[in-house]
């Protein structure tokens, strides 16, 4: 029983990260009906930039406390990621607003490749070690153990998601986003500039991805230029699972996917009589994705996507 | 009394909580031009879409030429003999006018050697088939009046020509019933006249036409029979003169402040 609780908790930790990234996908898709393929790469950039900041500061100030390093990393990585996202939107996606749907999709793939390759060039093709910045002694939580960094992931993800909900539901900006999501034409008539809203949606998503990148790096103690791809794909799966365009759906989808993966990896050996081992773990998200898209494409909480005439 | 070409009864369709169609019945006599009118949102295009297989109905009986048909899949409906055009013109933009109409010949040219093997080996039968398709398409372009534009990309045609192309394409499927969704929308009076002449010609050549139109003058002039929908129900039906005077129809159009003309 304890093992189950442990795996569920691990799944929730993983799922929180998926949720953070899924929110970025869902915000953009809700407004533009575009899968921002390059979103996972933004997360990767966040992780890399954070790592560079941390390494540099550790070099310059050897005794610097962990939490301070984390904050410093975020101070640099969040604006960087937001800038990257804004640039992508402005240069690559905006000109293709009225192009047939394949065009922005192909562009997104191209951007994803460019970002990965740039990261490979700047930070080397080898995986880089992410140092432990928090005490490593596990903490007991309801019958299972969580490392402090995992706790940090859970807490910070929860806080960020709550803040985002607040922003979307209680502020003028959030209203503008929802308006553009429902009907861009009506939004224009009401004085909202959809271009600004779109850019903001990209940047918000990027900010969340930057944090997620740092958290992922911390969790696995590794940062690599390919880390964004698979994670991005899984986060996208989570967004679809919850209902693309639907913010609470992204959170729900993320958490669920994390738990499914965690439990699946743990039990797949038993389930398939030893035929499939845990290296098939990555297939879970693909299977979930394919299953959802084929069986219930609107997801658990339903799609909220504007009608394109 | 001859059997109607198209007979649908008791058609219902809900979208979420909204009843787009409730117990709608429609009969289309053979060889006639029949009009379907009603205020905006009455359900005309929905009925169209149900009849032609685009939306599955919640209930309804459908028969064409005396045979029951199941509007569950669009391409079977077309095979059975109903062809349609779209309110928003859905041409194949990057294909030429000729190619557009040739696509319309697809289902009527499915003989031997019309599949991939025939294409790959270019058998004489295949080539004959292709020639026949091209010739039929070209003559249809002439028929609707745009024969000279066969090599033009559909996206480069004028609005009026695009509408005519869509009709040619629909005719290419050799339908028993030609269903036109607002073919005159956005046309100036001259273009509307030309369209009317074309529709009369199509009728004279033995086809039956179902027409959704907002131009009441045009409907009254062309149609021998008009069905009026409002809020998903049939509120009137009959000869244009009768329908125009029907109080129920007048109320539906004017009583709620809707304008027509």
């Amino acid at each position, binding site marked *: 029983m304890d093992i189950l609780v442990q795996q569920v908790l691990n799944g929730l930790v993983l799922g929180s990260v998926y949720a953070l990234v899924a929110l970025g996908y869902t915000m953009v898709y809700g407004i533009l009906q575009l899968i921002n393929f390059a979103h996972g790469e933004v997360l990767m950039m966040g992780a890399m930039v954070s790592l560079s900041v941390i390494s540099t500061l550790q070099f310059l100030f050897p005794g610097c406390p962990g939490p301070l390093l984390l904050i410093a990393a975020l101070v640099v990585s969040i604006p960087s990621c937001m800038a990257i996202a804004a640039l992508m939107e402005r240069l690559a996606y905006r000109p293709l607003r009225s192009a047939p749907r394949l065009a922005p999709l192909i562009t997104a793939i191209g951007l994803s490749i460019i970002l990965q390759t740039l990261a490979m060039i700047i930070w080397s093709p080898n995986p880089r070690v992410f140092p432990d910045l928090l005490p490593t002694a596990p903490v007991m939580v309801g019958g299972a153990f969580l490392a402090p960094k995992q706790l940090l992931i859970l807490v910070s993800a929860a806080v960020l998601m709550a803040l985002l909900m607040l922003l979307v539901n209680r502020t003028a900006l959030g209203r503008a986003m929802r308006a553009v999501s429902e009907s861009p034409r009506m939004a224009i008539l009401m004085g909202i500039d959809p271009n600004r809203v779109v850019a903001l949606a990209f940047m918000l998503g990027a900010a969340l991805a930057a944090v997620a990148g740092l958290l992922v790096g911390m969790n696995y103690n590794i940062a690599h230029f390919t880390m964004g791809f698979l994670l991005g794909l899984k986060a996208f799966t989570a967004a679809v699972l919850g209902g693309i365009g639907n913010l609470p759906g992204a959170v729900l989808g993320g958490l669920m996917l994390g738990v499914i993966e965690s439990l699946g990896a743990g039990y797949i050996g038993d389930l398939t009589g030893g035929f499939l081992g845990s290296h098939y773990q990555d297939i879970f998200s693909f299977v979930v994705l394919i299953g959802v898209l084929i069986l219930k*494409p609107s997801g658990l909480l339903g799609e909220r996507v504007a009608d394109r005439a | 009394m001859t059997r109607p070409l198209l007979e649908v009864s008791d058609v219902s369709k809900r979208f979420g909580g909204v009843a787009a169609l409730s117990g709608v019945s429609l009969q289309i006599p053979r060889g006639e031009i029949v009009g379907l009118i009603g205020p905006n949102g009455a359900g005309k295009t929905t009925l169209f879409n149900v009849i*032609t297989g685009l939306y599955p109905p919640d209930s309804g009986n459908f028969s064409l030429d005396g045979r029951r048909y199941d509007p569950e899949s*669009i*391409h079977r409906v*077309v095979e059975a003999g109903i062809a349609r055009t779209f309110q928003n013109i859905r041409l*194949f933009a990057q294909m030429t006018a000729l*190619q557009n109409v040739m*696509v319309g010949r697809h289902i009527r040219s499915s003989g031997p050697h019309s599949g991939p093997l025939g294409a790959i080996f270019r058998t004489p039968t295949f080539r004959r088939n292709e020639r026949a398709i091209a010739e039929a398409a070209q003559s249809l372009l002439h028929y609707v009046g745009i024969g000279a534009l066969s090599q033009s990309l559909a996206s480069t045609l004028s609005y009026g020509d695009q509408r005519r192309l869509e009709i040619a394409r629909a005719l290419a499927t050799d339908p028993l019933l030609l269903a036109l969704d607002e073919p005159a929308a956005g046309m100036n009076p001259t273009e509307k006249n030309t369209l009317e002449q074309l529709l009369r010609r199509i009728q004279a050549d033995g086809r039956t036409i179902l027409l959704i139109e907002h131009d009441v003058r045009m409907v009254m002039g062309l149609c021998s029979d008009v069905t009026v929908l409002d809020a998903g129900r049939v509120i009137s039906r009959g000869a244009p003169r009768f329908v125009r005077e029907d109080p129920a129809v007048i109320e539906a159009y004017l009583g709620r402040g809707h304008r027509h003309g």
Partner: protein
Amino acid sequence: MKRNAQLGLLLTGLALFLLPFAAGLLGDAWIRILAFSLLYMMLALGLNIVVGYAGLLDMGYVAFYAVGAYSYALLASPHLTDHFPVLAQAFPAGLHLSAWIAIPLAAGLAALFGVLLGFPVLRLRGDYLAIVTLGFGEIIRIFLNNLNAPLNITNGPQGLARIDPVRLGPISFAEPLSVLGVVIPSAQLYYTLFLLLTLLVMLISIRLEHSRIGRAWMAIREDEIAAKAMGINTRNMKLLAFALGASFGGVSGAMFAAFQGFVSPESFVLSESVVIVAMVVLGGMGHVQGVALGALLLYAIPEGLRYVARPLQLELFGAEWIAPEALRMLLFGLSLVLIMLLRPRGLWAPTRGGSA
């Protein structure tokens, strides 16, 4: 097919046939590059049917390449007889499937997979289709990588080696051939075979394009609902596109296995699918000659860069700043983005209606 196009094709074919003699002067490596370019051309032409004609963005096309490669590898190498005594008994001389049977077999198997993978995605719209097919491609790769226990079918990450070369009677393509005093290197023998196959694939593509089937595909690409309204059975047409497109990939895969003598899951990663998509996009979706050119450019240039980039960078910057692999990927990413922004119809714009 028009007279001019036929003549143009013939002349181009002749030039291509003579090309390796010229390339051979620079070294055998260049002949290999040409041979691989042809394999990629076949892949791009196959994907062209799915993406270019039918408008289905398949991001997992490499799966069919893998199916072709592994089916040939399994039927023409010692692996199965080494690991399964039952088979060793049934085939005491080993499994040595002739390439001439293997090619149609690979095409057929790949076509089957095309239908299998196409079936679930029939009703998906553009972007979802892309992601799901991407997922399929990855699933196949993961299976290839892990089907080595409990039964060792694919030999996992180590791959399959000692694959038979193509044999034409007594002539083995793995050995240089002496003809009238001229020595033709092994790579050139393969090149010639690949050239014939590629020309065949191009011919088939063009013939399909100018046919009832091709028009139906393009109708689906332009507007699926309108296509249905014309009576086209879009489900069958899409499956046909997947099957035919996949078959080209299968043939290319089988030839790859024979040429290289070795296959492993590493050759069938996602970035390969992306590269093939880039080739089709660059060349102009739906435009056969353009796609072939796109494949040549996107394969040959990065490969050529491999030899040129390092010395060039050392000259200019004193150090190698960007590794050839990185340059290659950068080139792909940039070409995808720039083409979409500047020349969405591809580098080589088509003459008339029919292409995307």
